[in-house]
């Protein structure tokens, strides 16, 4: 398996506060990599550095074998989908306009974008009838589906999800988890998924990356983490979450 994204010695500090220690990470094509850890562990920072919402202090990032630079980042962003917890939908645009915004910006034909829109609404199980609605007229789960459609519109090679289900109630969350997993499998999508929920991580992950205090503690399958913890923190984290998820 080739690495689609490669981070080498990437770090970020804010004044004295270390957000991310020098970090190396490879993200394999077609796999789902889950970044997990407690709040403030640097998992979101890492994700945002990949799409350059945060400029790293040092280190290098490669995407598809080429270094990411300020010059090519805007073009690369069009090959990356990004979904955040609150959806990040633009309130002044309808669901449809949100999804089509980027395709229109780069001048894709109406026919092509329309077909892609129908495809996506089927894929994400989002009713076409709801497309003319504004974000405020949609439920939390519906908004996340629109946000996912927007992220997938240009068929990105990489999908970044930053706690996309964190704000949803448990039932909606469960049904979206299932749909998302099917979508990723069906598309053979490369995904980096940030969550603090171990059950969710186990459900999605091909590879789990556990982080704490700005550094990666251990990478591997859930079995690796359980059976050969690299650090007492790993066991602590897994046991704490298991207690909650078993309730």
């Amino acid at each position, binding site marked *: 398996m080739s690495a689609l994204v490669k981070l080498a010695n990437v770090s970020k500090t804010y004044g004295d506060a270390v957000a991310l220690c020098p970090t190396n990470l490879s993200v394999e094509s077609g796999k789902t990599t889950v970044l997990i850890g407690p709040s403030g562990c640097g998992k979101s920072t890492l994700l*945002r550095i990949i*799409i350059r*919402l945060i400029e790293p202090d040092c280190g290098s990032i490669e995407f598809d074998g080429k270094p990411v630079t300020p010059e090519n980042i*805007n*073009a*690369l*962003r*069009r090959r*990356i989908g*990004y979904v*955040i*917890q*609150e959806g*990040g*939908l*633009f*309130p*002044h*645009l*309808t669901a449809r306009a949100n999804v089509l*915004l*980027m395709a229109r*910006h780069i001048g894709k034909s109406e026919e092509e974008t329309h077909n892609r829109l129908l495809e996506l609404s089927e894929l994400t199980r989002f009713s076409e009838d709801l497309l003319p609605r*504004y*974000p*405020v*007229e949609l439920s939390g789960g519906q908004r996340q589906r629109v946000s996912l459609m*927007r992220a997938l519109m240009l068929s990105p090679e990489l999908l*970044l999800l930053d706690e996309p289900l964190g704000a949803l109630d448990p039932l909606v969350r469960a049904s979206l988890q299932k749909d998302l997993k099917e979508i990723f499998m069906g598309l053979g999508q490369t995904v980096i998924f940030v969550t603090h929920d171990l059950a969710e991580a186990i459900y999605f992950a091909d590879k789990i990356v556990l982080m704490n205090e700005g550094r990666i503690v251990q990478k591997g399958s859930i079995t690796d983490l359980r059976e050969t913890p690299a650090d007492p923190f790993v066991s602590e984290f897994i046991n704490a979450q298991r207690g909650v998820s078993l309730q």
Partner: protein
Amino acid sequence: MKLHFTSRSGGLQSAVGLRWLRSRRCLISALLFLPTACTFAAPVVIGSKKFTESYVLGEIAKRSLSDAGIPAEHRQGMGGTIILWEALRGGQIDAYPEYTGTIATEILRSDSTLSLNQIRNSLEKSGVGMTAPLGFNNTYALVMRRSEAQRLGIRTISDLQRYPALKFGLTHEFLERQDGWRPLRQRYGLPQQNIVGIDHALGYGALANGSIAVKDAYSTDAKIEQNDLLVLEDDLHFFPKYEAVFLFRSSTRADAIAALRRMEGTLDEKRMIRLNAEAERTKNYARAADLYSEGRDGALRRPDAAARRTYQNLDDSFWHKLARWTLRHLQLAGFSLLLAIIVGIPLGIVASRGGVVGHVILGFAGVVQTIPSLALLALLVPLPFFGISIRTAIAALFLYGLLPIVRNTATGLQDIPRSLRESAVALGLSPTARLWQVYLPIASRSILSGIKTSAVINIGTATLAALIGAGGLGEPIISGLNLNDHVTILEGAIPAAVLALLVQWCFDLLDRVLIPKGLRI
């Protein structure tokens, strides 16, 4: 009267508006083959300060020039001493009535003991000439209600020393003048502490209802008789002479100067008081100017056809005037608002990015807002491009309109949640597309409300444009204030308030069109 009393508060009729109106009338007159002051030669422009006597003198001068066959126009009540003097030096006017005491102390910054010849020589250096005195001395005076003065036994200014509790209401100009309140108090050793600044015209009302006991006035003021006031004797001879003269640009055509000179020595105090009273009674300065001509010719000269037409002009129907004021008002407010939008939104966008530049922009706009509007007008008037014109009014309104637009644009953009900004960036939109397709639409409510605030402020502030002769609904307000005529004030104040409401209402409608539906649900 030497008074420039109202230089700070007052203003006058819109010279520009009147001129525009007059030019249209001229056209009609010419078509009717009626000879009038309208010819192709540039007219001689007479200015006046914003109080009755100055209006009357200006009107008399205009009449004298017209009678001599010289085209003339009168810009009524342009402001106080500084504005008139700057306008004269800047060539926006050719002549205006002034008082020798004022020339010596306020213009030449000397003392009032200068002789006429010394004054004349000093003015020559500025390219300004002066007529001989017109015949009356309009000096400052302190006045009280006659009944109260008699009750207290006050006859002279020295008598005031015995009543330290008396409340004084003095014009702002008198309070500040080098020959005004402070030296007067020193000379007479006056003990009163309760001194308030009040507009000249409003001060008479305050005197009548007892809110003040003593006020400053000038010796030819028609209101002294009308209100049964007592002029306190200047027993220590403090007040200097304020003899009325005309100042004119030395380059003014010789026959015009000669016509002004013919007014020398023709107006004594009694006559001036009578003309002032007539002007205040009829609100018709042309009528007062007629009285002057009649008296001088020693015959009851029937107003000729041209003069009758003038009356018709002045008797212009109220609705016609209202339409003219409102139109001009909308021009002032609208044009300045448009400029403020064109300049303010880009500045707001830059300011929203913060940093030194952002702070400088917001700081500048904020500081402009703190300059009193009258002060801003006064600061702009001496600048070459501006002067006494509609340009100055628009520039001042534009500056006032900037802050709400800049600030609302900046905060509207800054208030966009980080998640939305980052989503726009992460999508790969170019910076321009982010701004136009995402940030500005999301901030549209805030930006529009800034524009609405500016519009309403401009409608209100535009009433001050009349102070520098730029017209609008401030014209009747300021004339009314000057004449102490509440009906005239309301003729301007009510339409201005209605206009502000209408503008607000229009913008509320505009919100529905311009703010994206998704932000209104």
